[in-house]
């Protein structure tokens, strides 16, 4: 297992470097000049010299290869550079917005797993009954409803039913858990629904597949209780593909968060990302994309390791 972990960790390094290079070149093609946009924002009369000075200050006048070298050296020291808009360090900007997004992502994943595993199991066990049909409709809808619209519907429902709106502004969970949860639960539910839907579908089909296996038939023939068959044989094997899909869907979770944070006016990574995009702040954009991709790569690594831990055939091959 140790060797498997080391091998997988080493494989991450070239992917990370590739992502870093891809991000740099993808973003530096951007036309338009952030300095001009920023300084002449409201039609302000700013001289060309000031703009040139600002460009110099930000290091944008250097040739591309120098900028690239600076960027890679910075990355080696885990320094993502400075935001072109606020002048703050990108690390700091991300660190500031990180906790709320991280918490929502974690809550959404938790909600998804909590819903998906029992629901998928019930659906598979009562296949083609009305329970199964209801679960499947709920799951298919989860794939179709945009998470941001679901969030809007939640706000609408809360307004119409209780005449209450989730507060704007984030309070740390440790400071005031109730205030914290009353803000974060809604976006977590909105993005968690899709997550749960995908995992439920996977759980159902994986379990149906496993139930057709010979070893299940053998266990039945031996007269083992259904409940024991489920616990010992079926669920364990069915969890494998579910774990994979949870890892893959994490990307959708981040994507959903980018849009849903807007709905609830949450000042997280998603909001920062949208702001960076609209302002053309490509240092910040670069740092954020890299940050998101890195998280995604590590989540998938974690899933791979979990998978290997659950299935000995993988780590031994």
């Amino acid at each position: 297992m140790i060797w498997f972990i080391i091998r997988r960790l080493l494989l991450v390094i070239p992917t990370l470097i590739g992502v870093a290079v891809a991000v740099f070149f993808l973003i530096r093609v951007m036309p338009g000049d952030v300095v001009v946009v920023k300084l002449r924002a409201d039609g302000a009369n700013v001289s060309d010299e000031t703009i040139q000075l600002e460009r110099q200050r930000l290091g944008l006048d250097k040739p591309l290869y120098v900028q690239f070298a600076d960027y890679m050296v910075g990355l080696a020291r885990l320094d993502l550079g400075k935001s072109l808009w606020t002048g703050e360090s990108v690390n700091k900007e991300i660190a500031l917005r990180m906790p709320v997004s991280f918490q929502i992502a974690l809550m959404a994943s938790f909600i998804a797993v909590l819903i998906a595993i029992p629901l998928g199991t019930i659906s598979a066990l009562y296949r083609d009954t009305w329970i199964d049909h209801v679960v499947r409709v709920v799951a298919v809808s989860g794939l179709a409803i945009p998470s941001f619209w679901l969030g809007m519907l939640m706000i609408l429902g809360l307004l119409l039913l209780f005449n209450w709106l989730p507060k704007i502004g984030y309070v740390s969970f440790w400071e005031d858990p109730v205030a914290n949860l009353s803000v974060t639960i809604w976006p977590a539910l909105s993005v968690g629904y899709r997550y749960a839907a995908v995992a439920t579908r996977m759980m159902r089909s994986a379990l149906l597949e496993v139930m057709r296996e010979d070893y299940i038939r053998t266990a039945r023939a031996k007269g083992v209780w259904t409940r024991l068959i489920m616990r010992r044989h079926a669920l364990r094997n069915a969890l494998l593909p579910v774990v994979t899909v949870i890892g893959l869907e994490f990307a959708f979770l981040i994507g959903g968060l980018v849009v849903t944070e807007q709905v609830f006016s949450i000042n997280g990574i998603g909001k920062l990302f949208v702001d960076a995009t609209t302002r053309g702040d490509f240092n910040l954009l670069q740092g954020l994309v890299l940050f998101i991709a890195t998280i995604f790569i590590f989540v998938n690594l974690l899933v791979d390791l979990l998978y290997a831990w659950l299935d000995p055939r993988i780590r031994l091959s």
Partner: protein
Amino acid sequence: MATVATTPSVDTLPKRANPLWQFIKSQPLGMVGFLIILLYVVFAVAAAEISPFDPESIDFGAMLSGPSHEHLFGTDQYGRDVFSRIVYGSRTALAVGIISAVAGCTIGALIGAAAGYFGGRIDNLIQRVVDIMLSFPIIVLAMVVVAVLGKRTLLGIDMNLIAAITLPIIPRMERVARASTLSLVAMPFIDAARAAGYSHSRIILRHITPNIVAPYLIMVSASMAQAILLEASLSFLGLGVTEPTPAWGLMLSGTSADFYQTAPWMILFPGLAITLAVFAFNLFGDSLRDWLDPKLKS
């Protein structure tokens, strides 16, 4: 009945059913999806005939009026008819969806077929690039492209928005096409084609691609759903289609959130339009997969 009775030998032969009828019979849900898609297509094609109002005409006299006989889905803060905007919005959604799904899947399928066919170093290189592209969440990749390229409108459609939605589809299709190609390359008919001295491009285009049509069609349908969702999300964020062009995501964005209580129809109907479209394409894609790929049939 009389003819059957007189020629019993014919009766014993299995009759080949009409494939369309077979699809309807075995995939009723897929048919529902297809009908919904058809409805949207009719909306898109005959938008001018169907919508009762000009989607962009502002009427301050009818501002924020609720659903009525005149305005089926109510009006927005500028007095524009929500129903007409949804009908015209299906044009935007379908145009962006079809172009980017077909473009993304075609490019992806060709790259995937080539990667699977050539194997070796070329395949390795392509797989690394695909790995990198897959490590960006779809919307993140699309937003970067939008930020990088800005806007370039052609025939009323933002080409760069389409590029942004196409790009994330390519690596996903590539994976599928490559996997199918790998199993094809081992088959005798490819060996025969090689032995006959056909060129690589002829083998890929004439012998491999026709055999990966099934996964291609399934992916196009699934990508359509994704593309529509992505376009709506980008437009919602103000990074996709811009005013006054009617688009579903755009109808939900900006100040529409100020009218939760006074005009909930402004939020309800465009979201329903997105959901129903994505639902239909997903349903159709799933049925297509069950129908075309017997291995996955339950």
